[in-house]
């Protein structure tokens, strides 16, 4: 697998939202205007790009079965993979908190535009699943994991901006009252998911 293959695949074929429905909660809640959803999309991409490589190293050198042989050969049969959920979420929560503080210090304007969403990213399924998929698919080196993280982030960004643009237009259309808001968003996401399914089996 080369980098471009992983990149394209993680944006379109394995799109976090349309293929796996990850990060749906914020996707539904924040997609009312294009501007805020683009901000959230960038923040998610950024956090994915930092946490996945860190969790990759953590997995490779501490958590995977027999990973700790670099400390001493006697640790070859130690398997800490049951701890990976706690470790990953701790890393994510810590990074999100750190990113929040750094952005607040160095770029108050960006902080003000993202402010509310930054802490919420810690509990965004898309970020957590970035690390979990990275572990499950077993990428060969840290470069592949990073490219995968970037691709998934961009895929998520594209999806939320697309639905926000559609929802801005929807405001002027006549929808049955009971279907307004969440209901129609679900159905449109389903239709968009079908369109994205045409990428399935796409090989580079």
């Amino acid at each position: 697998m080369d980098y471009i293959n992983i990149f394209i695949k993680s944006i379109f074929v394995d799109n976090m939202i349309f293929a796996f429905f990850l990060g749906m909660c914020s996707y539904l809640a924040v997609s009312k205007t294009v501007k805020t959803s683009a901000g959230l999309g960038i923040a998610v991409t950024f956090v994915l790009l930092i946490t996945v490589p860190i969790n990759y190293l953590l997995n490779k050198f501490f958590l995977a079965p027999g990973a700790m042989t670099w400390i001493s050969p006697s640790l070859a049969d130690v398997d800490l993979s049951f701890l990976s959920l706690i470790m990953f979420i701790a890393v994510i929560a810590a990074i999100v908190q750190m990113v929040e503080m750094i952005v607040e210090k160095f770029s108050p304007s960006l902080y003000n535009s993202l402010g509310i969403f930054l802490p919420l990213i810690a509990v965004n399924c898309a970020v957590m699943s970035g690390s979990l998929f990275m572990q499950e698919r077993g990428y060969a080196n840290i470069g592949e994991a990073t490219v995968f993280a970037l691709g998934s982030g961009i895929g998520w960004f594209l999806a939320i901006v697309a639905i926000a643009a559609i929802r801005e237009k929807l405001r002027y259309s006549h929808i049955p009252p009971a279907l307004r808001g969440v209901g129609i968003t679900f159905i449109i996401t389903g239709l968009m998911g079908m369109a994205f399914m045409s990428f399935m089996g796409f090989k580079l």
Partner: protein
Amino acid sequence: MKNTDLIKLPFSKNNPILVQVLGVCSCLAVTAQLKPAVVMAISVTVVVMLSNLIISLMRNTIPPRIRIIVQLVVVSTLVVLVDQVLKAYMYDVSKQLSVFVGLIITNCIVMGRLEAFAMVQKPWPSLLDGLGNGLGYSVILITLGFVRELFGSGTLWGYPVMEKLGLYSIGYENNGLMIMPPMALILVGLIIWWHRSRNKDLCEQ
């Protein structure tokens, strides 16, 4: 609020998926078949109940600034336990659910109930609130799993219902779209439509 309401409301007026729109990710991804849907429903119910109880017991000692990390640690400990139990006793289902067991940690229902209820309420109502919301989530999950497996692959819990009814011999075909992911979204959309036309006060303007 009365204790019975805590159990009853999540089924109708305050359903976590249909009204609060929480925990949607897992509800869509694991419902292509009934069995993983039921296992997922039970796991989430257990985690919501216990995490609500534990956080409610600790609510007066958690500093507000780091509460999200404390909540995440409690929830992820419970999820690791569930994950290990599933791996030990139901290995095939746990393979099918793959990362979605781990994603219970970031399931918005769990965090949502902790933030909205368990941080400010006594342990017993919190436990009931967790049970109610877990069951409200389970109802939707099991409905989706039932419909999608029955019409998508013609089976229920792996038992070939449509074949035993002899429908294939008179020209019945499975609807392959049902097991595809997008159909889950459309079904939830339709359920929301039905639910809101029954409860007019929930409609958005």
